[in-house]
């Protein structure tokens, strides 16, 4: 049907979309770098003193200042900073005496593991909950879903974590306590992927897998509750929007059973925005993990940032901030592209 000219027009349109998307990403990354750079510059702590100590003689101080490039104009310093970031150099952490990039490589899988299971819990419970609310719009299941959703927005995640530990670890003993793995298993599992459960499974240590799961399930559930609130609310509003469309009326008039109208017709049209929402909630869980990891002594990116923060280790803090920001941008881009690809009107 589509002639060659139609194809050309379509690919030109796609080219424009991708081009605009790339420009947006480039500008956002530039802004991200500018913000972290400026934060580092407004810091009242003198970066030179952090290197040489406060008893250094004037010539040593001056030499360190030149080495750090602090005598150059601000824009040159910014250019040098960008160059370093793009070659994967985020500086050295004062706390661990290692390169920040190496530190982040070791801690990131732990956060990924936590946020992934959290999102999974959120989606598995949140989507059906939202559907239930939408199909009972205005009646008590809807009111309940609304209340639970708002409650999810109102609970401080670190407090929920503490209460979870108190109840399920200390009082009931259903789950393991803080940390990723009990000490007894620590020597059995070598890091391959950095995701403990996966590593243990690869090495056939099934007891260690169970132990790792027992450590993971509580913090992941705490995070999951946050995303259940968000995902169920969004599912409800998408589905209600679809259920008001004419094709739903047509299907009902035709005599299609209600469950097929909801699950087969309406939900299929709500899948695209839902994928975007789940991607966004994944992003927010990366953020929520900052406080959750502190509670559960989970050796991930969040605890790395907060630990460095309390020790005034600015390279590590800004490196971590930059990585989280970059992940945000990547997830946003990803969900945009998925949305465009999956929507036939945009294809």
């Amino acid at each position: 049907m589509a002639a060659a000219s139609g194809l050309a027009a379509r690919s030109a349109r796609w080219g424009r979309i991708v081009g605009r998307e790339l420009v947006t990403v480039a500008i956002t990354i530039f802004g991200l770098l500018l913000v972290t750079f400026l934060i580092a510059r407004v810091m009242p702590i003198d970066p030179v003193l952090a290197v040489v100590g406060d008893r250094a003689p004037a010539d040593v101080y001056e030499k360190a200042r030149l080495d750090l490039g602090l005598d150059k104009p601000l824009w040159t310093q910014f250019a040098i900073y960008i160059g370093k970031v793009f070659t994967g150099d985020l500086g050295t952490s004062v706390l661990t005496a290692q390169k920040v990039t190496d530190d982040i490589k070791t801690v990131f899988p732990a956060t990924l593991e936590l946020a992934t299971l959290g999102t999974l819990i959120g989606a598995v419970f949140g989507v059906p909950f939202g559907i239930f609310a939408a199909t009972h719009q205005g009646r008590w299941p809807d009111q309940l879903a609304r209340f639970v959703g708002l409650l999810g927005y109102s609970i401080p995640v670190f407090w929920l974590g503490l209460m979870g530990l108190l109840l399920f670890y200390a009082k009931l003993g259903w789950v393991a306590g803080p940390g990723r793995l009990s000490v007894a298993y620590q020597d059995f599992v070598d890091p391959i992927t950095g995701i403990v459960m996966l590593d243990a499974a690869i090495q056939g240590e099934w007891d260690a897998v169970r132990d790792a799961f027992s450590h993971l399930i509580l913090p992941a559930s705490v995070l999951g509750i946050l995303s259940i609130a968000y995902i169920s609310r969004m599912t409800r509003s998408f589905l209600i929007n679809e259920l008001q469309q004419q094709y739903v009326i047509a299907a009902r008039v035709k005599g299609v059973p209600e469950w097929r109208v909801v699950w087969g017709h309406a939900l299929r049209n709500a899948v695209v925005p839902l994928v975007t929402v789940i991607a966004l909630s994944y992003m927010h869980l990366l953020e929520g993990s900052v406080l959750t990891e502190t509670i559960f002594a989970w050796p991930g990116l969040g605890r790395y940032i907060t630990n460095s923060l309390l020790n005034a280790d600015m390279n590590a803090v800004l490196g971590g901030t930059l990585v989280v920001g970059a992940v945000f941008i990547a997830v946003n881009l990803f969900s945009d592209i998925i949305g465009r690809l999956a929507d036939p009107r945009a294809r």
Partner: protein
Amino acid sequence: MSDTSVSDRSSWRDWLMSTSPASRRQARLGQFYRQWLSFRGNPSAMIGLVIVVALLLVAAAAPLVASQDPLAQNLPQRLQPPSWAHLFGTDALGRDIFSRVVYGTRVTLVIVLLVVITVGPIGLLIGCAAGYLGGWVDTVLMRITDVFLAFPRLVLALAFVAALGPGLENAVIAIAFTAWPPYARVARAETLVIRNADYISAIELQGASQGRIVWKHVVPMCMPSLIVRTTLDMAGIILTAAGLGFLGLGAQPPIPEWGAMISAGREQIFDQWWVATFPGLAICVVALGFNLLGDGLRDVMDAR
């Protein structure tokens, strides 16, 4: 309604509900009354209103509500479980947790109000300017907004506090710095709708200046959605402030800030559960109150 006799009350009601108001004041009050009626019919919104009003009252009358001085240490009485003398028990320094929670309402309100009065006008100004002026002003302002939206809010606030140093004022600055983008977005979206309305064209033809149009005709129309947005945002601000306090970056001891109180109770969580539990419950109730209120206000004021 059961207004049987012709009383003062029913005539007031007729005046308010009149479909042909005789004055601007009558129209405005009538509109307000109708919104109140529909708000009153929403039980969860009313619960939210009650919680928020209670919060304001407790904060105003904190010395009357609290049974003891929130800062008074009493070491022989440390870590006492909840009792009639100490409703929520005592903490590791023997301070009465109930009194500290009560005084904590003041800290929370101060943080929330300071953030909102800085963020609201900034967001409104940026959003209305971007939406009304359009062109490159719009592009530049929205790009800046996007950069800030791309940051996770708590992590950015953490980085700011790290740079500025811990403390209540710096926590407020950091939260305000990360909280304005959604307000600018809302104000811009509203402005884009209003800008093309006929009455704006009519005012433009009468020769009103751009500043006057934005200030007198665009800003008031943005207010309802901005108020809704602010109310819903209060809970987020409270949670972020509590998170900073919990990490030791917000209010410093001995200020009775709820997040910092939870942090202090963390060490004793398995033995003296009450130290961390009650401040957390207070955060939940207050945040839920603002969320319920905002949700109800959205239904009433923001028909779109």
